[in-house]
């Protein structure tokens, strides 16, 4: 199958290139970057040296393909939807432009009037664990946000199986790596300012809350903190379970919902160094590790992902695999590194 990537010079686009180069059913036809057109993709993504001779091209040079990945900054695709939709029968978008089902939510969370509210229903939220059957029949997929993914996945089985006491709040805190901010520089990302920081960058009002609440159907009180890490997210969520729920019940709930999922692992051990999920050993992988501990009726659920993989490119390739009928793990088999 022939695919192209629009916006391939960013971190998400680079990861898409890396994954698709090794995909057994995909050939990357073109990769765009307006700023780097004509230059080899390895100038920006040096890890791909000797793996590809592809050069970046401009959007106006794009040819028709079977599937288009779009990895542009937020609000770009929604403005240029007609321009790209004619290039491929299928599309997978990594931005937030079609994630939210309610058009009014775009004004609230992204400060824009959505120019194609009629198209929102055509995009399936790209979280395979929640929407596998819809994705199988989808034409357009919208990738889920990284913090949203890391928060939704540990909580969803608990809501789905009625474990949560809905009268009490659900609070989640994410520790985030710097690559979440993309490859554009700012004063805040300048090394003397960013290095070593533990920066509370969104105590309230993070945009991904809109997705969490859309998918979970419950208010989520979410905060995000930047820490000294390039890749990775660790979410620690606190919620209250119904009376009488035991740790064994939580195990069974996760096993019931995620037992057959290829990219979800329940990590909760009493011995060893990595007893709970930790993003460090997930770098480059498409796993979401989930752990938990019960303290009375307060459940602490912990999850870890690589934000560029399960939180972006890996999730997009997983969704493509399901949409196209490929084996779900194609191109995503990397087990990670240890030690790293």
């Amino acid at each position, binding site marked *: 199958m022939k695919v192209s990537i629009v916006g391939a010079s960013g971190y998400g686009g680079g990861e898409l290139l890396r994954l698709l180069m090794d995909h057994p059913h995909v050939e990357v036809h073109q990769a765009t970057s307006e700023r780097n057109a004509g230059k080899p993709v390895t100038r920006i993504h040096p890890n791909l040296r000797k793996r590809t001779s592809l050069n970046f091209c401009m959007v106006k040079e794009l040819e028709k393909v079977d599937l288009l990945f779009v990895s542009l900054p937020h609000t770009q695709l929604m403005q240029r939807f007609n321009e790209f939709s004619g290039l491929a029968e299928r599309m997978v978008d990594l931005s937030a432009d079609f994630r939210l089902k309610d058009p009014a939510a775009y004004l609230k969370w992204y400060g824009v009037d959505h120019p194609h509210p009629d198209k929102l229903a055509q995009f399936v939220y790209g979280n395979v664990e929640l929407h596998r059957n819809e994705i199988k029949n989808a034409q357009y997929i919208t990738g889920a946000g990284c913090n949203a993914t890391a928060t939704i996945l540990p909580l969803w089985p608990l809501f789905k199986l009625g474990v949560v006491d809905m009268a009490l709040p659900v609070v989640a805190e994410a520790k985030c790596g710097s690559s979440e901010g993309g490859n554009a520089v700012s004063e805040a990302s300048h090394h003397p300012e960013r290095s070593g920081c533990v920066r509370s960058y969104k105590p309230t009002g993070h945009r991904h809350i809109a997705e969490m609440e859309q998918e979970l159907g419950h208010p989520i009180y979410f905060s995000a903190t930047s820490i000294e890490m390039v890749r990775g997210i660790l979410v620690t969520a606190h919620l209250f379970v119904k009376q009488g729920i035991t*740790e*064994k*019940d939580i*195990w*069974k709930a996760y*096993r019931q919902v995620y037992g057959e999922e290829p990219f979800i692992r*329940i990590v*909760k*051990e*009493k*011995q*060893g160094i990595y007893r709970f999920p930790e993003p460090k050993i997930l770098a480059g992988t498409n796993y979401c590790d989930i752990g938990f501990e019960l303290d009375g009726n307060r459940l602490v659920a912990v999850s870890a992902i690589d934000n560029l993989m399960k939180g972006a490119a890996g999730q997009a390739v997983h969704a493509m695999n399901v949409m196209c009928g490929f084996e779900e793990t194609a191109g995503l088999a990397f087990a990670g590194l240890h030690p790293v």
Partner: protein
Amino acid sequence: MAECPVCGAEFKLVDGAEKGEIITCNDCGSELEVTGKDSVQEAPQEEEDWGE
């Protein structure tokens, strides 16, 4: 089938498993002591002190 008393995972004990033998649950990693043909109990486990 035996059931892990910690996480509820069901599994078959290998043929020849001896009473008193310590096995590890594949799901939660708990050490379990074989108590019968299809039964186990949680074995005494030392938790590590991480400087609490």
